[in-house]
C-alpha cells in the first residue's frame, strides 16, 4: 500500500493565505478561529474543502462541514487524521 501523504499544516496554511485571502499581513496560527477572524467565509470554505479532498484523498460529507472540523488549522488536521484512519 502506498504511504499516505503527511498532514502538512503548512501547505494548508499556504493555500489559505495565497489562494483564499491573498494577504500575508493577516497572520494566523494553528488555533486561530478562521471563521470568526473572517479569514475564510462560506465560499472560500468550499474551495478549501476541495483542496483538502484532492490532497488527502478523503471525502468530505455535508455533515462534516461544521465548525468543529473546519474552524482552525488544528481542527482541520484532526479531522483529516480521523477520516484517514483505517476502518
Amino acid at each position, binding site marked *: 500500500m502506498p504511504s499516505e501523504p503527511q498532514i502538512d499544516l503548512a501547505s494548508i496554511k499556504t493555500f489559505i493565505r*495565497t*489562494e483564499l*485571502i*491573498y*494577504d*500575508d499581513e493577516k497572520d494566523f496560527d494553528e488555533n486561530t*478561529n478562521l*471563521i*470568526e477572524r*473572517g479569514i*475564510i*467565509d*462560506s*465560499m472560500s*470554505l*468550499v*474551495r478549501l*474543502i*476541495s483542496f483538502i479532498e484532492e490532497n488527502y484523498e478523503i471525502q468530505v460529507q*455535508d*455533515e462534516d*462541514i*461544521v*465548525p468543529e472540523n*473546519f*474552524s482552525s488549522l488544528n481542527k482541520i488536521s484532526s479531522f483529516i487524521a480521523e477520516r484517514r484512519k483505517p476502518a
Partner: protein
Amino acid sequence: MPGDVAAFPVRLAQWIAETGITVWYSVPSALIQLVEHGHLDRHNYDGLRWVLFAGEVFPIKYLRRLMQLIPHAAYSNLYGPTETNVCTYYHVQSSDVSPERTEPVPIGKACANTEVFALDEQGRVVPPGQEGELYVRCSTVMKGYWGRPDATAATVLPNPLNRAYADVMYRTGDIVKLMPSGDYQYVGRRDKMVKSRGYRIELGEIETALYAHSGVKEAAVVAVPDERIGARLIGYVVPGEGALTQSELMKFCSERVPRYMVPERIELCGQLPKTSTGKIDKKTLENESKLYAERTAN
C-alpha cells in the same frame, strides 16, 4: 446571523429551524448552498413564511428544489441595481417552477411609486414579446456617481416619455423581455459586466489592476458562467521581465480590487491567443477557462 453559522450549510439549516425566523432575504447563492449542502429535509421551518431573493439570477432548478423542500413559504424575486434600489418584484407561483421550465422566473413588475419600461435601440417603448433595455424612474434613483460626471451623464437621462417637466430616469444596462403578462424577464447585460455571488464586476477593472504590476506584459480576465455563484473569474497573464508568481499577482490584485474581484486562479502563459485583428481572443480564453472550471467543479 452568527458568522460561524453562515459558513456551514448544515448548521445554517438547523439555525433557521431553531430560531423560527419568519422572513429570509439574501442573494440566491446563499440559498443554493442550503439546497445543495444543507440537508434542508431534516428540519421543519414552520415559522418561515417568506423567502425573498435578489442580486443575481436564481437558476430555476435550485429554486424548484427549494420550493419543494419548503413548500409552505411564499417566494419573491426582487430586482434593482444599486443606482435605483429595488424597483421590480415578482411573486413566484408553484406553477412557475414546473419541471419542464428552464428559464429563471421573471423579475416582474414595477414596485409601488416606481415606473419601469423597456426601450428599443431607437428609444421606443417595446411591445409585449419584444426585448429592450430597462429604464427606471423612482424617487430613489441616484443623483450620480461620485466624481464621475461622464458615467452619470451616460446613465441618468431625461425621460423621453415626459416632456411636461424635468424628470430623469436611470438606464440600467440590463436587457429584458416584456412578457404578455406585463412582467419583465431578465435576458442579460448590454455591456460586459458580470455578476459573481451577487457582486457586480467589470472585468476591465481587474485587468487594469493586473496591468498596474510592472512585471505584467499582457493580462486578460474572463468569467466562466457558474450556476451556483454566477461567474468564476480566471486571469491570464503574460509576464514581462523578471520573475512573477501566481501568488504574488493574487496579492497585488487583492490590494487594488475587492476580494470578490480577485480571480480564483491566474495562469501565467508565454502568450495570449489573438484574433485576426490582433486583439486578445477572449473567446478562446473563455473556452480554456471553461475546461479548467469543469475540472475543478465542486
